[in-house]
């Protein structure tokens, strides 16, 4: 399988008055062609920072380093600003969380949809409009021709998100990063939008990095999942493996604290993860999850675990000394 994106040891740090906030602490990620990778985690775990770093949208003062950030054979970090602009929008595009704020209120939708493709691919206005109409139609927007002259405020939230999806597909990118694209939407609309993203992704063979905090969404849409905690990937596996056989205590905790209709006994005490996320300023000593982990042992306080294969499989990796130790015993 060909890797479209391969990231090694990505780090993002932001200067704050209290010291450097290390939001992303060494992430290894790869996305295969046409694959749906879900990054899941709670607020403040660095999932949005990762996506902004990949897109090159972080402010200048943010320090982004990586051993490698290969996108289809190109090293993204060594590109000039101009070259990066060429890649972004044409070969990588993004769907943002808030369809209410991520469209420009003072330009028509047609203007915003066509801007990128005219600039990147040198299409004429008419050709660009034709493509916009085609994609709006594919995205399930009724009366696509009429929409080109409308402004964002004339559309509902669900429709705006469809426009955003059409916009992301305009230049036929190889990779789309979708940052919580359905969080602001109602459940019935959410189901429609997820289905749309899945269908278009399969039809156009686009790779998607889907960022969300909702494990329900992840379960239904992902090929592969990376669970993030405190700026690190703590577990990565195929969706099947992750939900049927979670290894990291944090993943298990997350799965246990959601009430599932028909499974959780109504009114019963829900399991929760005690404590709070550690501060990301400065170094973390030992395992980042140690203070909230019910299974932690002495060595977790000082030894930071690395991401190890579970049962010798490269497809399921976990960052936990205890899980790794027990997996080694099982393998023997």
């Amino acid at each position, binding site marked *: 399988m060909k890797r479209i994106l391969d990231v090694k040891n990505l780090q993002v740090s932001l200067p704050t008055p209290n010291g450097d906030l290390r939001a992303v602490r060494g992430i290894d990620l790869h996305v295969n062609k046409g694959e749906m990778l879900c990054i899941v985690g709670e607020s403040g775990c660095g999932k949005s920072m990762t996506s902004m770093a990949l897109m090159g949208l972080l402010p200048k003062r943010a320090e982004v380093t990586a051993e490698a950030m290969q996108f289809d054979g190109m090293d993204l970090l060594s590109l000039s600003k101009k070259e990066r602009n060429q890649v972004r929008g044409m070969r990588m595009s993004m769907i943002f969380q808030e369809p209410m704020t991520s469209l420009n209120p003072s330009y028509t939708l047609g203007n915003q949809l066509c801007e990128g493709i005219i600039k990147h691919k040198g299409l004429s206005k008419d050709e660009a409009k034709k493509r916009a109409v085609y994609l709006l139609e594919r995205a399930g927007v009724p009366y696509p021709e009429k929409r080109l002259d409308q402004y964002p405020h004339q559309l509902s939230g669900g429709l705006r998100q469809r426009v955003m999806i059409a916009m992301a597909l305009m230049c036929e990118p190889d990779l789309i990063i979708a940052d919580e694209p359905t969080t602001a939407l109602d459940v019935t609309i959410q189901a429609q939008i997820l*289905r749309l993203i899945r269908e278009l992704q399969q039809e156009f063979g686009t790779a998607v990095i889907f960022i969300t*905090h909702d494990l329900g969404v992840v379960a239904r849409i992902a090929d592969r999942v990376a669970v993030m905690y405190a700026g690190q990937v703590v577990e990565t596996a195929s*969706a099947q493996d992750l939900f049927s056989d979670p290894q990291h205590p944090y993943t298990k905790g997350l799965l246990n604290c959601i009430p599932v209709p028909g499974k959780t006994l109504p*009114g019963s005490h*829900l399991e929760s993860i005690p404590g709070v996320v550690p501060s990301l300023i400065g170094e973390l000593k030992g395992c980042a999850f140690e203070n909230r982990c019910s299974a932690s042992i002495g060595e977790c306080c000082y030894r930071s675990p690395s991401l190890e294969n579970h049962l010798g499989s490269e497809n399921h990796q976990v960052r936990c000394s205890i899980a790794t130790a027990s997996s080694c015993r099982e393998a023997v």
Partner: protein
Amino acid sequence: MSEYALELSNLSRHFYLKNGAFKEPTLLKAVDGISLRIRPGETLGLVGESGCGKSTLAKMILGLLEPTNGDVLINDKARGSSSRLLMSRQLQPIFQDPYSSLNPRKTIEQIIRLPLQLHKIGDAKSQQKAVKDISDLVGLPERLLKNYPGQLSGGQRQRVAIARALILKPSILVCDEPTSALDVSVQAQILNLLMDLKKELGLTYLFISHNLGVVEHLVDRVAVMYRGKIVEQGTREQIFQNAQHPYTQALLSSVLTPEPALGLPEVLDSSAWDKAS
């Protein structure tokens, strides 16, 4: 003891949307003739999509918005028959966003204590003790009382909001999406707290949410709202196992549980439930 803790009879709220200076305004029936009854000690879940009028309804129950029509009865007394201060001793809100519902310039202690001061209950010393007791009850460490809301996490802030709501010992809580701004691990803590408090204090909840998993876990009865009307109501089992209205069925089928084998739900056509309602 009154028969119903909270009773809404034919409650409506209409808005007029302006269409420019010379055009007729459009009538928007945000809440359109809703009747609901909640018995003491019961939890009623109110579900529906955004814009269906859930929050308008909550505002009318709390007395923050005048109804166009109909009455809100709290413990058999009409809201408006006595002062707002008296009503607020029986009914308190918990809002969605703990980041904007707490005054950032007051300490946690001042925030929790304010209702007692407004109602002139007790002297300074007994108020302080009451604040400590209630913080204990909601699991808020005492050391945080001197802090400001900005220094607290989302879960802790929601505990402050719950403490503030409970300090007047109300019998009814109106929870408007109390966990939707929180992370799932924290959501579980707050839901557990709400269930424990209900058992301990015999509270009545009106629980407004769009998260059906949470609603199923917490409530005794469910009312489904669509475009300002209640389209279906019943016990938890009736709604979750045997929903009749197509909109309720659509809502239930859109719930995404963490079960990868199920895939994405079929997209349903909204005309089915538009017709039925």
